[in-house]
């Protein structure tokens, strides 16, 4: 552009250039620019373009990037409350319930403090589709999980251990080979679309029907110092753009999730049989006792789990 913007921002997200999700963040960046009449210029940084995906949170903290959309499980060791935020195993899928939880029952308020403690401003959270488990063999009952080696990091690892499986640590780019050769018997993906993009259904055909957590809630965060430099009207504009973005995520991710399922089914993905009531109960139980454990990880997590239990 010919003129200089008042604020030059950098916005990093988790997805590579050209992916559907990447475009949603891209249009949020464009929205901020147009809604602010060009006073804020936002440069979009996709995955691998300067900041490692695990480093988005740290980048926003230090001001290297102004705004970031990170994936909390990757930063579980730096901001444990993010694990409760994204959704503990056994959490709800109901969008209305989640909205009440965040906006009315106090999640937003606690998380605002949690992020502020590390120099970040917490903006409107948005909802993405849940985490599913893909296995090489069909799962006919929960018993079948016993002894399986599943790639499941962090909280999900503890969940599958409660089911009798063994969580395996494996780097993302080895999941495909790991599934193909049988080093692991299954893997979780950050959502169904992720399974499609990783081509995992080529080498592991069975998707389990129950998601590990109902839905995932992710935030957009901004570096505190950059935020404080904005006049109130621009702050309002950025907030408005994040609200539009949250709506976008909701409508589009539903659509993409069903497309991803269709794509994978076309390539031979199958669903494991419908779980019985007893299976569903066992599944829920595996998630429940994790809540107490995660409440212990820090003070903000404790507050969040307290709110969850009151639900």
């Amino acid at each position, binding site marked *: 552009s010919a003129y200089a913007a008042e604020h030059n921002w950098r916005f990093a997200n988790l997805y*590579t250039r050209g992916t559907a999700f990447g475009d949603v963040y891209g249009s949020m960046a464009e929205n901020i620019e147009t809604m602010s009449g060009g006073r804020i210029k936002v440069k979009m940084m996709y995955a691998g373009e300067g900041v490692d995906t695990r480093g988005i949170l*740290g980048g926003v903290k*230090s001001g*290297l990037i102004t705004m970031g959309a990170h994936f909390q499980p990757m930063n579980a060791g730096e901001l444990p409350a993010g694990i409760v935020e994204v959704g503990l195993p056994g959490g709800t899928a109901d969008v209305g319930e989640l909205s009440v939880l965040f906006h009315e029952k106090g999640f937003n308020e606690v998380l605002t403090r949690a992020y502020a403690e590390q120099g970040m401003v917490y903006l409107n959270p948005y909802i993405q589709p849940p985490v599913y488990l893909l296995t090489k063999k069909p799962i006919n009952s929960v018993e079948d999980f016993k002894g399986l080696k599943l790639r499941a990091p962090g909280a999900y690892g503890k969940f599958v251990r409660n089911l009798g499986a063994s969580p395996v640590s494996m780097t993302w*780019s*080895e999941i495909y080979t790991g599934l193909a050769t049988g080093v692991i018997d299954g893997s979780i993906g950050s959502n169904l679309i992720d399974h499609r993009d990783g*081509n995992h259904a080529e080498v592991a055909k069975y998707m389990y029907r129950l998601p590990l957590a109902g839905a995932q809630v992710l935030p957009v965060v901004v570096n505190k110092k950059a935020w404080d430099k904005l006049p109130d009207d621009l702050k309002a504009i950025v907030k408005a753009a994040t609200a539009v973005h949250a709506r976008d995520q909701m409508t589009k991710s539903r659509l993409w999730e069903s497309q991803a399922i269709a794509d994978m089914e076309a390539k031979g993905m199958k669903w494991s049989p419908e779980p019985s009531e007893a299976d569903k109960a066992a599944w829920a139980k595996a998630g429940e006792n994790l809540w107490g454990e995660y409440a212990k990880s820090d003070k903000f997590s404790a507050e969040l789990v307290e709110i969850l239990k009151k639900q």
Partner: protein
Amino acid sequence: MMGIELLTGILLLCILVSFALGAPVGFALGGIAMAVGYFTWGDGIFQIVPNTFESVLFSFILLSIPLYIYMGQLLTRSGIGDAMFNASQLVIGKLRGSLAISVIGVCSMIGAMVGIIGAGIMTSGSIALKPMLDRGYDKKLALGVIMAGGGLGILIPPSVPMIMFAASTQNSVGKMFVAALFPALLAIIFLVSYIIISCKLNPERAPLGTGAEAKMTPKEKARTLRDGFMSVFLIFAVLGSIISGIATPTESGAIGVVGAVILAFFFKRFRLGMFRMAGMETAMLVSVAMWIILGATLFSNFHLMMGVQDMIASFTQDLGLPPLGVVILMQLVMLALGFIIDEFIIVLMCAPLFTPIVVDLGFDPIWFGILMILNIEIAVQTPPYGFALFYLKGIAPPGVTMLDIYKSVTPFILLKLCVLIICMLFPELVMWLPNKVMGP
């Protein structure tokens, strides 16, 4: 603020000056990125350091570099690795250049174990460079063979760049792996033919019969054959551990290390001093490789933060070229990027930028992905700046200069360029097998 084109020019100039002064590559790249960053961005850019160091030093994929080099060092220093080549010389030693051909064979097997360039070249170099030099092979031929053979690491499955390409363009990894087989075979045939022809024309490049096996007693011969057989067996055991799902490609390096130690004990060749020296040499090579990767990643992260990807994106728009012309131009851009950026970043950056355009022009994305892998293999070996060149210098004996390395890789780069061009002009060569096996 400075335009990205001008900034890129300044960065290139700084690289050339610091390289001319003989600066250690990794430290120079890091220092330049930080100094130029300070003057264009301010001290905020220094915050890029923690993220870069964390992501490089905590990258599990890069662990295959120490593990496989260690296996190579243990095999070489215990004499088991040499035994493999001695045995091959007993069998096919009458053919001029046969040792270099065995080396290509061993490199192909290593290529089937490792998934990244650095591990391929440094492991092949650890095992196979010394036997060639000991037998009086021409230095340039020996270095070039290691470079060309080690580069097969990303062309023969498993291959990390292929997995990254498939993921970022939503294509089948399995199909990529199968599609790479014919180009890999073509590359191997070209390399072997070149060695045979070149040694025929210049017999002094590959002396005959100067090896120890010329004056061996039958008992020694039997021992050599047995040792050679066992070391090939170790390589197959490592390959088997990957294929049978015991370990991932990275982890299998550790199996190779344990196997090499067991073999050394078995053949009574284990010495504490040998074991210590192998560890020290490996540690040194790993440190050298990792500091290059650290500095270079810092450099490219800075360049990406300043928007080099937008420059590439705008460059390939609205060209008004015929379809194949666009593909060729993209190949040239990637070759040029190999000037300053490593294999993973080229894929991460170019795959999503270029592939949709190529698909719109009516080409097969898998075919384009294979071209990209072939291209990267060339780009990282092209002077003056290429990771593969630096890795090779790290593994080469003292006294080998960078100029030696530049000269030695040139014919092999041309061979690989031929493979690239053939695969570009005849897409059916690449696509026939995967379409046959997995359907179009």
